[in-house]
């Protein structure tokens, strides 16, 4: 029973923290660029504002355009039930493993791209095309990262992976793990539309991907999509944090361990946010057709990860 409560709790936590995470990255970047920057809580205000605004829908759009925000949001939230954010093992662990997580997120991307095409504006099409390209090219890396993890854990189920790593900490520092981590980090940047793949801070530039796709959205729909994006970011961060550096994740569901879990989660998120912020200030955005090169780098990393964990088994 407590398990189910915990599931709901961690989903709620993810939903709550997500906008804050975005805000945190923005704030850190501003700081690193010697700007005062908006407060960390700014995204929350934006969401509230968007929920209050009326929606404008293109007259070309179909029902799909209106359904999409809900699908995207729902799929993102559904993932939060599957990912071990605070504790393992969770009762829903058996519903979906890492592959399910990946394909659920792909479901959101799929519909978002369709919605981008629906109003018939060239920006939407451009965004959709690029989003799907990046998503497709990121797939093999993800799969291989999963392979690497599954190799050491003997399973693709997240609970198993976390538990296995915690039982023998040595695995966490094995080259396979480190390489897989690198690969998955790059993929995270790609999937969540961060620099150097996409620039979340711009609007209406021909280089943008995600923003172009959602250009036609407004009001509560836009709010849902932005929120879902934030949740996605949080999910990837917590995957990076908890799969590769699982310490802190509570295994015995006692209040104390849970408190530790929350704390460690926050710590991991802050660290990762910091890394991203530094990256985004240090490096410029890649030209769109250089992106595949970056992804192939991550692919090679993942391949090395797998083979090394194969041979070092």
């Amino acid at each position, binding site marked *: 029973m407590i398990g189910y409560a915990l599931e709901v709790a961690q989903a709620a936590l993810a939903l709550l923290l997500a906008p804050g995470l975005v805000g945190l990255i923005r704030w850190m970047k501003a700081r690193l660029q010697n700007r005062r920057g908006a407060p960390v809580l700014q995204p929350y205000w934006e969401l509230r504002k968007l*929920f209050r*605004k*009326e*929606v*404008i*829908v*293109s*007259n*070309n759009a*179909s029902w*799909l355009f209106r359904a999409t925000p*809900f699908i995207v*949001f729902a*799929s993102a*939230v*559904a993932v939060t039930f599957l990912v071990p954010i605070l504790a393992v093992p969770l009762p*829903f*662990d*058996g*519903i*979906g*493993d890492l*592959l399910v997580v990946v*394909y659920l997120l*792909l*479901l959101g991307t*799929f519909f978002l*791209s369709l919605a981008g*095409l*629906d109003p*018939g*504006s*060239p920006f939407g*099409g*451009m965004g*959709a*095309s690029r989003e*799907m*390209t990046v*998503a*497709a*090219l990121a*797939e093999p*890396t993800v*799969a*291989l990262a*999963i*392979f690497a993890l*599954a*190799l050491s854990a*003997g*399973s*693709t*189920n997240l609970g*198993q992976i976390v538990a296995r790593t915690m039982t023998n900490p040595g695995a966490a520092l094995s080259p396979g793990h480190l390489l897989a981590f690198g690969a998955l980090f790059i993929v995270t940047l790609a999937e969540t539309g961060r620099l150097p793949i996409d620039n979340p801070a711009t609007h209406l530039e021909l280089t943008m991907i995600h923003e172009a796709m959602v250009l036609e959205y407004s009001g*509560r729909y836009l709010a849902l999509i932005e929120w879902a994006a934030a949740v996605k970011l949080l999910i990837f961060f917590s995957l990076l944090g908890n799969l590769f550096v699982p310490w802190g994740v509570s295994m015995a569901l006692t209040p104390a361990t849970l408190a530790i879990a929350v704390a460690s989660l926050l710590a991991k998120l802050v660290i990762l946010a910091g890394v991203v912020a530094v990256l985004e200030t240090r490096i410029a955005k890649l030209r769109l*057709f250089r992106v595949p090169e970056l992804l192939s780098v991550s692919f090679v990393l993942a*391949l090395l990860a797998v*083979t090394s964990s*194969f041979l070092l088994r």
Partner: protein
Amino acid sequence: MAVDHLLLAVMLAAYPAGALAALGVRGAAGRGLAAGCALAGALSGLALGAACLAAGRGPAVTASFLPLTGLALRIDGLSAFFLVVVGVVGAAVAVYGFGYSSAYEGRYSLRMLGAMLNVLLLSLSVQVIADNALTFLMAWEAVSLSVYLMVLTEHDQPGTIRSAHWYIAFAHAGFAALVAMFLLLSSGELTSSFAAMRSASLTPAVRDSAFVLALLGFGAKAGLVPLHVWLPMAHPVAPSYVSAMMSGVVIKMGVYGLLRVTIDLLAGGPAWWGGLVLGLGTVSALLGVLYALMEHDLKRLLAFHSVENIGIIFIGIGAGLMFQSYGLTTLATLGIVGGLYHTINHACFKGLLFLGAGSVLHATGTRNMEEMGGLIKRMPRTALLFLVGACAISALPPLNGFASEWLVFQALLGGSAIPQPEVAVILPIAVAMLALASGLCAACFVKAFGITFLAIPRSREALHAHEAPLSMQAGMVSLALMCAALGLAPSAVVRVLGSALSGLARFAPADVGFTLGLPLRAPGAVGEMSPPLLALGLLVLLGLVPLGFWLAGADRRLRVGDTWGCGRIGQTPRMEYTATAFAEPLRRVFAELYRPSRDLSIDFHPESKYFVQSIEYRSEIHPWFERVLYDPLVHVLGAAATWVRRLQGGSVHLYLVYMTVALMALLTVARWWR
């Protein structure tokens, strides 16, 4: 068993009746009779298959009907499963075809079409339950011939005859390989019954050559790269429900045959068999989807996706064969079950997609996506059904495509238990390519659905499109439901498939009890997921969000306005993103493979070269298989032919010279023989 025999009899009787009815009766009545008989046969076949799967064994019939070896039919798990596949798609196609072929009234030979559909279904059903070589081969050629004649239906369209010719050429080449293969297997044993082949003791060389021949023959039928070139030619030009049949079932006969021969008749082989199948499957999966991305002909796109999915199926089977050779029976079962699962899944969603494409073609009269758009408003039901198919083929949970691909993934991951460096190289690459393929597939179907159904119509035909008639919708709906059902009850399906395999040589039944989820306990692979609960969760969340809005009292106002375009007023189809543009980034990424031919011609305004009058940009992609593999072959044949023609030079003296030379040569042989 009595019921089984009854069903078998009904099935074997209904199809010929339908064929005769189609030939005999003209007009709508004939169409109706043909469709009805086909439906009856398909349903009884379906029931028969289901019954045998449930019972785990089926009737075996031998009759001295055919000459030489006689007719021999036997239904085991594998046959029953493929009977089900034939039945499911066949029934849907029969219903759909009734409406679809009405457009042919008076234009093309409907009698031939109706008759051949029944012949096709009959020969497919016979083929999967054949128990000796002659029965199998006869059914095989009957399938090829009937499909060939149906592909030729719209013979006045450009390219149809050529495509049909390529098809029949490949089918027959495959047939030749299969004849050799079976006769090698039966090793002079005259009845050439499968039972005899199972018990035959063959040298490794013979077994290997038989396997290679089987791979050639069945690969050509399945459209495995590089034997696939006929597929994207023949599928588009056929009537759409025939394409559905071809893509959904006919190419699966390659899968059936390969399984029957490798794991049943040959009872598995060395590891390189599996490795080869796995490798070819991987290449097919990737190349298929890559070429599909570049297609703007809706049906050609789907055809290339058939190549991709056949690749996925063969990945599963290849992995299974490989694991079996290493003695990992459970994993082997897992892989092959994954392959079979994807087989029926692909049959359903690809059938659905082809039928949807058929409805679009029926409504707009074009296959070119660049001339479509906005159809979701004009044919909403077709659009919804096509969307279901698109999600399924893109392996989006909780639909069926995801379930089977998940199984294949799990099998490959489990393969890590094999302590072999080459395996350590092959498996990860296979996994990565499979993932890439499915990602690209999703991209491709965003393009296919988005460009075809969304936004503004790009042509008058699309503007005045109309929803498909009821019979066609019914056919599509049944397949869409199958997609959902197969996706939501994977554990049941997997158990059935496992028991289907367990009848064959040394295969443990897949140990999946019926739960809501799909727990796997294979050595080296432990995984679990539950599509039904997943679907439930998604539904709940989809319900909760609006509820939350309502509770939060969020703004409910909604204004419909023009699409925002940097202040430009009024939007025309010309401003839309095209399919070509959509695929451009990937075309650039994989330019090394595509080697597209571009030519850009700009003609400027006579006064100043800063004013462009018109820009013409053309870019084409020629798959290099024809160029690299088949053009040389054709060339050699042509050269040989011209050389032989020169023998018939026309001079009687020359002919007499041949004769004399032959005489003297043979005399010399005879004089000094031994």
